[in-house]
């Protein structure tokens, strides 16, 4: 078998170049994509590819990748030659070898569904997005199955199969020169059963109604306000306001405001934040990370205290922490970086109504519109798809295009209430030079932030 030949070859090359540690990933990716705009099919493709990513460690990393089969062995040798040339002083966690063969279970594999059925789903959804004032509609579907064979110099040999599906739609509404968009996405490490479980009629109506309603919404006020985030926005908030700053590679490089704060109280009592890539079926889930470390649930904050960083082989060793399997790569052609999986806030004991009553004047903000963080300065921003002004505990008029900003160390201590209604179902992609699938969520949350409105 070809893989066995590569394993033998890697062993010989490592001996020849004096390399102490190496790891190789060979992935086969099978993917189908269908997209449609205004009833017209825009994209339809079905492809597969195989590639290799090889890393060798010699106190610093050497990496090489290739997608042409004839270059696979050459990529392994190149990684080793680079590592030999690099010779650094870093150390990494090695641990015991792992031998495993693990597949994420699906009820209906994508390969059982023909492409006509996938096109039919997209068409049917498109037809439900029509209506007055809707000038644009988009539907996209994508499924992938990534089969990876990982082996390293410790003797680990791990085969994994991870399916991933994403399905979403958006509309643009227009009236009197105003334009607004609304969208909804679904995703998971699941098979075709995910789309069968969606009430498409409900969600398409909701998206159309929201886009129309936003046309009449006004811009929010600006300044510092009490803000209630819905579970989706809580997920985005915690991803930006905490998640990136606890990625141990940033901490190591002096690029995080949370450096040196392990064991310290950085948030309010009762706030517990977890990153758990083992949650079944979630979009950011995986079985092993891209360094062959088993995925595990990691508590980042327990009751307001920073208890862990997310780490990879290098940062686990650097900080003397238990490795927790957060070294993830975009593909075989990328080196693993410390990344989140499924990040969420655990439940508190507030109901949404109780939270509302707390707010004399503030905003209720709904839906993830992306965010970004400057981890060194400790400033983050995130956008919401819609919002409502809260006056004396009651929801008033709708506001649009709401973006918020805050300081990590202030805002985690400004949380006044944590809801009991946890939801983790907001699939997305997180960029950090590389793009990886993540999920996040939590309950409703009441905090304080700077709102950048036009009013």
């Amino acid at each position, binding site marked *: 078998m070809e893989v066995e030949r590569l394993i033998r070859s890697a062993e010989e090359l490592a001996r020849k170049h004096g390399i102490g540690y190496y790891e190789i990933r060979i992935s086969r990716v099978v993917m189908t994509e269908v997209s449609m705009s205004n009833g017209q099919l825009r994209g339809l493709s079905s492809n597969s590819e195989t590639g290799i990513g090889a890393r060798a460690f010699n106190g610093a990393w050497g990496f090489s990748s290739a997608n042409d089969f004839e270059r696979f062995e050459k990529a392994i040798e190149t990684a080793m030659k680079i590592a030999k040339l690099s010779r650094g002083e870093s150390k990494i966690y090695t641990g015991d070898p792992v031998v495993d063969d693990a597949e994420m279970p699906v009820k209906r594999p994508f390969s059982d569904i023909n492409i006509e059925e996938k096109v039919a789903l997209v068409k049917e959804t498109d037809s439900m997005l029509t209506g007055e004032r809707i000038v644009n509609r988009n539907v996209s579907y994508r499924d992938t199955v990534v089969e990876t064979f990982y082996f390293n110099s410790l003797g680990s040999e791990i085969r994994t199969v991870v399916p991933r599906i994403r399905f979403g739609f958006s509309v643009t509404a227009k009236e009197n020169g105003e*334009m607004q968009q609304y969208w909804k996405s679904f995703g998971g490490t699941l098979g075709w059963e995910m789309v069968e479980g969606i009430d498409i009629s409900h969600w398409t109506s909701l998206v159309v109604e929201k886009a129309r309603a936003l046309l009449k919404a006004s811009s929010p006020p600006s300044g510092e306000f009490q803000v209630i985030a819905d579970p989706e926005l809580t997920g985005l908030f915690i991803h930006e306001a905490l998640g990136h700053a606890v990625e141990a590679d940033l901490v190591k490089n002096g690029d995080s405001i949370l450096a040196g704060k392990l064991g310290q109280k950085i948030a309010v009592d009762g706030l517990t934040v977890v990153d758990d890539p083992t949650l079944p079926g979630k979009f950011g889930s995986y079985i092993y990370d891209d360094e062959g470390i088993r995925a595990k649930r990691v508590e980042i904050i327990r009751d307001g205290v920073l208890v862990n960083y997310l780490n990879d082989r290098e940062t686990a060793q650097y900080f003397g922490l238990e490795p927790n399997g957060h070294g993830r790569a975009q593909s075989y052609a990328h080196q693993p970086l410390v990344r989140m999986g499924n990040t969420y806030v655990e439940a508190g004991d507030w109901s949404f109504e109780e939270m509302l009553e707390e707010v004399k004047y503030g905003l209720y903000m709904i839906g993830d519109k992306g965010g970004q963080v400057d981890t060194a300065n400790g400033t983050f921003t995130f956008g919401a798809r819609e919002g409502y002004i809260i006056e004396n505990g009651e929801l008033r008029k709708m506001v649009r295009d709401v973006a918020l900003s805050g300081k990590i160390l202030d805002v985690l201590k400004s949380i006044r209430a944590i809801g009991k209604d946890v939801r983790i179902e907001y699939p997305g992609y997180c960029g950090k030079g590389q793009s990886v699938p993540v999920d996040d969520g939590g309950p409703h949350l009441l905090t304080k932030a700077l709102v950048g409105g036009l009013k």
Partner: protein
Amino acid sequence: MIDVIESLAEILNSKDVEWEIYWESGRSGSFRIERETLDRSQRKFYSGIGLRVGLNGKLGFSYITGIHHSRSELEKFVERTIKLAKVSEVPFRGFPVPSKVPEVKGIYDRKIEEIPFEDAHALALQYAEKMRELKEKETLSGSISLAFERYGVVNSNGVELEASSTYMGVSAYAVREDTPGNGSFYQSYRSLQGIEALEEAIMKAKEDAELSARAKRLEPYEGEVVLEPEAVLSIVEVLLENFYGDEVYYGRSRFSSFGDRVASEDFTLLDDSTLEGLPGSYPFDGEGTPGQRTTLIENGILKGFLLDHTYASLLGLKSTGNAVRSFRTVPSIGSSNLVVEPGKEGLEDFEGIIIKNVFGEHTANPVSGDFSLPVGLGYVVRDGELVPFKDNMLVGNVFDLLKTAEPGKAIKRISSFMAPRVKVHAKIV
């Protein structure tokens, strides 16, 4: 033409279809320095062929990785793509016909193609050494990347083009360890740069980190603000997809008719893929359409969109040569080099509020135009004295903001974007 493409074209010519091959073969080397130490070095190889087939008004697309394939593998590849065209309902609007491609200078440097990996590695070590030498109160990190690519487009209308390009990227990042503050610098080139460019990157990042560490939040303000080219880039990014032909065609752009006034009369924005030596330059795009200069806004008036062959045809216009792609994808519309033309006013000595950079552009709403972007770094200049600020938000509406834009004289390049400082009316919260 390389052998594999010739064989593939021969197979396709024996079928009753229209076809287009886009191929790439490239190599990249990159080096990541963390805490003044070279920590990660890599060398990647990639190649592949993307094939589009037009059949009965419908389009099929598929790709294969690598450029070493047997005749039978190529035949299977062709069959698979034709089969997709048969079931596809993606409209096919033909492929470009041959036309004269401009000579674009300075996009290939033999020194980058031929640099031995050891020499590139030595340059990265020199960069790390320079960081150790210049380090004061900050932690310095950064990267160097070098890339070479050969690519080509061949189609059944007789287009047969290939080109080579090289690229070098340099980044530096400085974080103050005493008080929170950071600065970064990024620049890209088409030719090999020496230690001077690396030193400049470090110094620029250090300067901003020093200012950032001293910066405090500014009181809310509304009025005249000068945006540095970095902040102008963010504003143009919020605006940009309104110029994309597909967004226009599908009704998702705010712009519809040429001749509309969309900015102040001093504001001119263009896209130009023929500029010498710039990172966004190319002689032809991903479909073989010649690169060109396209005016998007001229003296405040909407003049053009960015188009590929398909959406130009659907809109009854001509492609502007803005089809961007890799072998894995069908063409999509993108910009090449974006240029905000200089204005009459010199803003170099402007006194008042200046914003260096903002972040989070993707949270803005391109169709409504509303944005609220955190200020990474800004400064107030009074009587020649400079007081930095950060953590405020710059808020506004991009369409309204453009109507107040007064570009300055001196142009600065940030990778494939060129702009002067621009004075606008804005709000800071």
